[in-house]
């Protein structure tokens, strides 16, 4: 769980990759050509970013004719959301310990 979270964070740490991922989430399947038009970087760079997103399972590709189409896999974000959610339980547990400590400090 932690290693998949690491991959997701690494993949999304780069703003160009985040922009590509969000574009795929918003507009649906796109070819590398279409993504390159909006990315502001060269096609080899876009392909490199897509590989990183693919390693994190954030995108999937399929070949159709001579073009490769990419689609977002937003369910890959789930570990990231879980990870942040863990802090809710963590702090509630710590607050219970803080309450115990405050009681002990009276004595």
């Amino acid at each position, binding site marked *: 769980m932690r290693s998949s979270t690491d991959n997701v964070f690494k993949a999304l740490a780069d703003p160009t990759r985040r922009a590509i991922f969000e574009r795929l989430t918003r507009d649906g399947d796109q070819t590398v050509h279409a993504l390159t038009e909006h990315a502001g970087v060269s096609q080899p760079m876009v392909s490199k970013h897509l590989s990183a997103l693919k390693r994190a399972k954030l995108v999937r590709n399929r070949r159709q004719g001579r073009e490769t189409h990419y689609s977002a896999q937003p369910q890959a974000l789930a570990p990231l959301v879980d990870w942040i959610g863990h802090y809710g339980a963590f702090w*509630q547990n710590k607050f219970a310990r803080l309450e115990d400590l405050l009681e002990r400090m009276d004595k």
Partner: protein
Amino acid sequence: MTTPDSSTRSVVVEKEFPHPPEKVWRALTESSLIEQWLMKNDFQPVAGHSFSLRMDPVPNWNGVIDCQVLVVEPLRTLSYTWGTLGMESIVLFTLTPTPAGTHVRMEQSGFRPDQEDNYKGAQYGWQKFMGGLERVVAGLE
């Protein structure tokens, strides 16, 4: 007790303690007391002070949280950064006196990768992304 913030991902835990703010403040800011409820630490209540919180190491994690004190307003506000596992966030404690004691609100927010290039980040904000994240995940149902 935990509610997501509307704009960006955050964790909020609130509780009223039947103890005066002076005592709660000591528990939040004296190193030996912090250890008893939170973690081993070398905290000092001085803005700019870097410290670490340490838990027992577990597989894939050395148990260390790297922090830096941001705000110290005695009896009212304590804030520090919280960096671990390649992610940085900000922890903010707010104390409010009540007739029965002290209301304590802890908010942890601004989760972002700590290796982010700030210049590039300005072009496409991580915070904006995290704001959209909740909608994306909600759409999975």
